[in-house]
């Protein structure tokens, strides 16, 4: 059994972390199937349902008999303070499963128009309420997860690729190479992250489409994170390169880069995997922060961050607290990543101690 499998066994024994990993898996699965699960498309809006509260699901008909899930229509009126208020009407709209709705490109492969659940127009189903333009927050949370969840992973992969390589090269070669690369790292680390984020964002033109903005933000985020990892990896490489198996590899005619990739970086994976997992939340929060202040993903595209920008007004929060739902999902995701990262690091630690491996 390899070390990886042993560590995995120890990890699996940590119940909480295992559940957290499951939750993350579920979230990413939801992201993958967002089009199917979400009852409404990204741009779907209904101005008559501004800040409509979460729709109540009914299961029993008026006479008390079980009827299957249905929702009632709502009627909006203004109260004496000119605030919107919604009352249920007598109209009944049964929830339909796998019914036709707006068509979408399923996984980018084929056109489909079936949705997991939906109700007939003019009924609306708002599981988590509606936002200022009557858009379904549940649907938008799912669509937004595509941006918010993947931007973290992508950003982290890019920045850790850079970090591993720079750290590996600096640690292995040492001397002037090390000096130059480490000073470079310090220059990046010197600038406070969020301001660097803003400055880099300002350097990117505004007239981009959503995909370009997405790519730009990913690259900007990954530009910030690599330096810290590079420094730690470099420190580990300094000790790892003195190991006998590295020397043995050198006597077997392996090139420097080959040795770094085959015999040095794999030994830092224990640390890097934990560090990667613990870093993802930073990227998710970074994207959210950018989008929140309007520099990230722009309306009508959804991300958890830009959905929250509506929640910046205390008055709206007071009367429509459900617009905070994206914050709940950010919180859950960040917490799960932290739990998994912590547990993974712990799962490696006993192994590291037992073998005297540097970490």
């Amino acid at each position, binding site marked *: *059994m*390899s*070390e990886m499998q042993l560590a995995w066994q120890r990890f699996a024994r940590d119940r909480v972390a295992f559940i957290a990993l499951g939750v993350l898996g579920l979230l990413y699965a939801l992201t993958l199937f967002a089009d199917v699960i979400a009852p409404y498309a990204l741009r779907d809006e209904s101005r008559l349902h501004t800040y409509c509260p979460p729709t109540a699901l009914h299961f029993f008909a008026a006479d008390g008999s079980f009827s299957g899930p249905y929702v009632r229509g709502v009627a909006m009126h203004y109260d004496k303070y000119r605030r919107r208020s919604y009352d249920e009407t007598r109209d009944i709209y049964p929830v339909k499963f796998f019914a036709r709705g707006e068509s979408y490109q399923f996984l980018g492969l084929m056109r489909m128009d079936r949705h997991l659940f939906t109700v007939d127009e003019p009924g609306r189903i708002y599981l988590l309420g509606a936002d200022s333009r009557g858009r379904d927050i549940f649907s938008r949370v799912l669509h937004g997860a595509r941006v918010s969840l993947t931007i973290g992973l992508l950003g982290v992969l890019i920045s850790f690729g850079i970090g591993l390589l720079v750290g590996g090269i600096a640690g292995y070669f040492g001397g002037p190479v090390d000096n130059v690369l480490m000073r470079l790292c310090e220059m990046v680390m010197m600038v406070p992250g969020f301001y660097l984020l803003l400055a880099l964002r300002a350097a990117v033109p505004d007239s981009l489409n959503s995909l370009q903005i997405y790519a730009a933000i990913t690259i900007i985020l990954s530009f910030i994170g690599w330096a810290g990892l590079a420094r730690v990896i470099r420190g580990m490489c300094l000790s790892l390169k003195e*190991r*006998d*198996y590295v*020397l*043995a*590899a*050198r*006597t*077997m*005619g*392996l090139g420097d880069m080959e040795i770094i990739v085959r*015999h040095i970086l*794999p*030994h830092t994976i224990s640390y890097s995997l934990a560090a990667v997992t613990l870093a993802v939340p930073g990227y998710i929060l970074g994207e959210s922060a950018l989008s929140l202040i309007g520099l990230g993903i722009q309306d009508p595209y959804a991300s958890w961050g830009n959905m929250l920008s509506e929640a910046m007004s205390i008055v709206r929060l007071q009367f429509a607290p459900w617009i905070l739902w994206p914050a709940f999902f950010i919180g859950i995701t960040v917490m799960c990543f932290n739990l998994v990262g912590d547990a993974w690091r712990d799962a490696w630690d006993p192994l590291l101690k037992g*073998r005297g491996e540097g970490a």
Partner: protein
Amino acid sequence: MILRIEGLCKTYPGGVKALDGVSLDIRAGENLGLVGESGCGKTTLARAIMGLVAPDKGTVIFHGHPGRREFCRQVRMVFQDPFSSLDPRYSVRAILNEALRLEPRMTTGEGLTRMRRVLDLVRMPRDILSRYPHEFSGGERQRLAIARALMTEPSLLILDEAVSSLDVLVQKDIVLMLEDLQQRLRMTYFFISHNLRVVRRLSRKIAVMTGGRIVEYADRDEVFNRPSHPYTRALIQAAFNYEVAP
């Protein structure tokens, strides 16, 4: 003559003179034993021969002046610590396979045959190819390290304290195995150790090193019967007789 070392010097940053004008000849079939206390420069010498440490001065000349690749094939090294000389992330197959990159191109089948052969030679079962280093004891790992060194069918094997960290019974097994291997494969050993008994058993010639210098270099019996340098006398006395002469 298969290896000639001429005037090797190496001073580490901080002023430690690890090698101070070391010259040695290793003849084919004439095992050379190198003894000396810890920190006298033995390991630095082995690493300088292998090109792992760049010497400040001096040369290492291998018979026939081969290129780096051929040198790496012909001269193989077994390291002191069997726990760190095998990369714990790779299976036995991957570890042995890595040595094959020095060889002319080989099919997977030929490589496998070679692996089975060296496993036989070091008396390890053939079915361990998919296992990992941490599943083996220290002695078994050292056998694997020797197996890896044998993969390229070398003519000179540098054993840097190769049995020092093993218990005496395992040590005996490995020493006997090395003797047997030498007869079968016609290799020459450059045996570095602080253990005089093992060195006496395996070597034809013995060099004694202290403070980065070779202070004695002669036939085995000569060194043991008529040591010329006081340091050699002290070493022999310490190893075979704890009583200090009055």
